[in-house]
């Protein structure tokens, strides 16, 4: 950088650093990896603000109501890639009314107007309509990436618009969306001249696809790296597709089930042996175990294996996973059981992320032998393990202490004991001590979900020790207001807090009102809040939006209710956009 203020030789002096042209700063900022760093730079002075905002290419809006779409377009005029998230996380579990909001339309319309050069659009937990997709297809001449995660509101008609309109599309990534099937053969609408696809994920689509059309599409898209099929593709067709795309890196097999036939087995085995670049594998496998050896040739190369929709179990499954020595990510059902996780522990030493999902979450009678033992084994033997999601039925403090000691490098620890209020099954004590060990040992912990029988004590530890914690999920825990107070008065880095069915009331919320503005959002449902506290909070903190949802009363106007009225659910978030105007009747802004 130039030497500021030098007067020695005026002709040769570089301009003072604070007078460098914007392009220099823009170039410097392009090396800042995190948006938060760019934001910090932009906040330091006007010229940096100007340079940063004009050169920002990627924008992540973590709460679609935190700012208006127009605010975003005005502030960052050169954005090429946008990600917007809508509904609160608990919408995944049905706790948010379907008409709550999170419409993508205002964002799509603002983008069409203000970001004509937009290349990437990603929506998560939002309502995306066919109109939105049509506008996208018509508005951005260089549109390349569409990613929709846990969205709803659109149909195959909208997908047709994308297929026919987006000439430069590279990625169409549909993850776990609710898509209406209009029986439109949308795949047919990719023109014959269209060859740019790199990612095609339609695994969540119900309904048939034309295999011949898919085959032709896969054949002509030579750069196709990710292909995730839906349930409509039978096994023998899968083999054919793989032959046409041996360069595939990520494969979702769709419904992998068929009666065992030797010739089909050999066909599959041969097809997979041609896929030398295959690294990531997923699928909804009602797999007949006898087919698993067809995959053996790719096991060694796999870094990511998602069997979380696979109901296959037993020794064949374990043998298969045991061959995947280079796994970094494993998502699996609890059908793997402790003995399967013991094999994972000994074979998959590069494992970084483990998720174990419940195969029968609502059926207590269906007992699968997956206990704390499995998690203890994996955390003891996998030195790079840093992210865990684990559903199980029993846990002990001792196991958690052991896990904490073995794996201080956890960044994400989510434990879900299926039955609420379950204590340590040996000592019958609350699991406070165990979870405290986790937060004390794992200094880099960013995300935590607690479960089981827990008192306020665990929250005292979390508040005091979890300095890097950004997201905390609490359910059926705590015994008094103190629990919430410990969290809100501690947890320096907390961004998202979601709480359900805990005896937390008004006092800690009001006492820590200022904290809420340092956070992205707070969700509290089935706790002990009253309308009066919500009113006070809203009055005290004008830059927070306090949304109240009361299901059993229907749409009773808040004005008619007293301060003492109990509140089912609140969702509080900071916003610069003021109160939103698209709430349904059951949601009211205080």
């Amino acid at each position, binding site marked *: 950088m130039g030497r500021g203020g030098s007067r020695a030789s005026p002709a040769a002096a570089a301009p003072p650093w604070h007078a460098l042209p914007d392009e220099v700063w823009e170039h410097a900022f392009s090396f800042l990896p995190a948006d938060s760093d760019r934001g910090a730079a932009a906040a330091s002075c006007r010229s940096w603000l100007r340079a940063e905002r004009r050169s920002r290419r990627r924008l992540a809006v973590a709460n679609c109501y935190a700012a208006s779409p127009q605010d975003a377009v005005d502030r960052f005029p050169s954005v090429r890639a946008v990600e917007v998230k809508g509904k609160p996380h*608990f919408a*995944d*579990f*049905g*706790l948010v*009314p*379907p*008409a709550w909001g999170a419409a993508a339309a205002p964002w799509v319309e603002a983008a069409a107007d203000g970001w004509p050069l937009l290349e990437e659009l990603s929506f998560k937990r939002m*309502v995306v*309509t066919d109109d939105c997709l049509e506008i996208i297809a018509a508005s951005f001449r260089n549109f390349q990436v569409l990613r929709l995660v*846990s969205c*709803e*509101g*659109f149909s195959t008609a909208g997908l047709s618009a994308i297929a026919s309109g987006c000439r430069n599309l590279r990625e169409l990534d549909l993850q*776990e969306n*609710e898509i*209406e099937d209009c029986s439109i053969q949308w795949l047919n609408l990719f023109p014959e001249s269209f060859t740019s696809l790199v990612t095609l994920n339609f695994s*969540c689509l119900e309904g048939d696809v034309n295999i011949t059309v898919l085959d032709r599409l896969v054949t002509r898209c030579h750069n196709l790296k990710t292909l995730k099929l839906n349930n409509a593709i039978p096994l023998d067709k899968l083999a054919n597709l793989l032959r046409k795309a041996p360069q595939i890196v990520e494969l979702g097999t769709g419904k992998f089930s068929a009666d065992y036939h030797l010739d089909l087995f050999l066909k599959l085995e041969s097809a997979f042996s041609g896929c030398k670049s295959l690294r990531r594998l997923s699928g*909804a496998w009602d797999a007949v175990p006898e087919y698993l050896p067809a995959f053996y040739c790719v096991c060694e190369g796999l870094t990511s294996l998602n069997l*979380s*929709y696979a*109901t296959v179990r037993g020794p064949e499954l374990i043998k298969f996973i045991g061959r995947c020595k280079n796994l970094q990510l494993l998502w699996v059902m609890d059908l793997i059981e402790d003995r399967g996780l013991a094999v994972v522990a000994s074979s998959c030493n590069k494992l970084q992320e483990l998720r174990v*999902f*419940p*195969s029968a*979450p*609502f*059926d*207590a*009678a269906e007992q699968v032998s997956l206990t704390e033992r499995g998690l203890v084994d994996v955390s003891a033997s996998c030195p790079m393990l840093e992210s865990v999601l684990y*559903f199980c039925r029993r846990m002990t403090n001792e196991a958690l202490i052991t896990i904490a000691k073995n794996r201080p490098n956890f960044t994400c620890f989510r434990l*879900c004991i*299926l*039955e*609420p*209020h*379950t*204590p340590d099954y040996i000592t019958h004590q609350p699991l406070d001590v165990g979870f405290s060990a986790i937060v004390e040992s794992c200094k880099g912990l960013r995300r935590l979900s607690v479960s089981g*029988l827990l008192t306020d004590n665990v929250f005292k530890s979390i508040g005091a020790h979890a300095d890097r914690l950004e997201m905390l*999920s609490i*359910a*059926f825990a705590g015994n008094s207001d103190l629990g919430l107070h410990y969290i809100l008065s501690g947890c320096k880095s907390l961004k998202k807090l979601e709480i*359900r*069915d805990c005896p937390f009331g008004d006092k800690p919320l009001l006492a820590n009102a200022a904290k809420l503005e340092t956070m992205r959002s707070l969700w509290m*449902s*089935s706790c002990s809040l009253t309308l009066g506290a919500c009113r006070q909070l809203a009055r005290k903190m004008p830059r927070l939006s306090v949304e109240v*949802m009361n*299901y*059993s009363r*229907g*749409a009773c106007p808040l004005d008619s209710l007293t301060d003492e009225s*109990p509140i*089912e*659910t609140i969702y509080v978030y900071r916003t610069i956009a003021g109160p939103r105007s698209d709430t*349904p*009747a*059951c949601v009211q802004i205080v």
Partner: protein
Amino acid sequence: MSTATANSAASPAVSGLDYDDTALTLALPGSSSAADRNKRAADHDDKPPSPKARAVGWPPVRTYRRNALRDDEAKLVKVAVDGAPYLRKVDLAAHDGYAALLRALHAMFASCLHADGAARKLVDAATGAEYVPTYEDKDGDWMLVGDVPFKMFVDSCKRIRLMKSSEAVNLSPRTSLR
């Protein structure tokens, strides 16, 4: 929304959709709902859940995953509400009769619609619009839910639509059984 009591650790979760009764219920055609109506009139607060009631949305398994993992005996049909781009799925096989099914439908959309039990309607509290549960049968005809024996309905129902009352006047119940 139901809350588990502090001492519910002993009772196991019950499988099947068993939403806690809120104050409102729907009535069947011809069946007496006087008891329900009285209960509704008397209840103003959330009452504590029955010991075996399972909390809504627990365990935290994504709806998408929950639907994907149902066994093949399930009969999942889509449920649409007129005028809203929301799609929900309901498992007809998981309910033993119209009462349970209507309760589940109500629970799905309860936050926006509340039930008028006597008239078998759901009402949008904001607009006053009334919705009637209808379904598309195997022949592609739209019928009123509740007119045929439940088993027959489950077999022939392809999808469900909560139709605005004004449009549903054109539907007539089946006059003959097949």
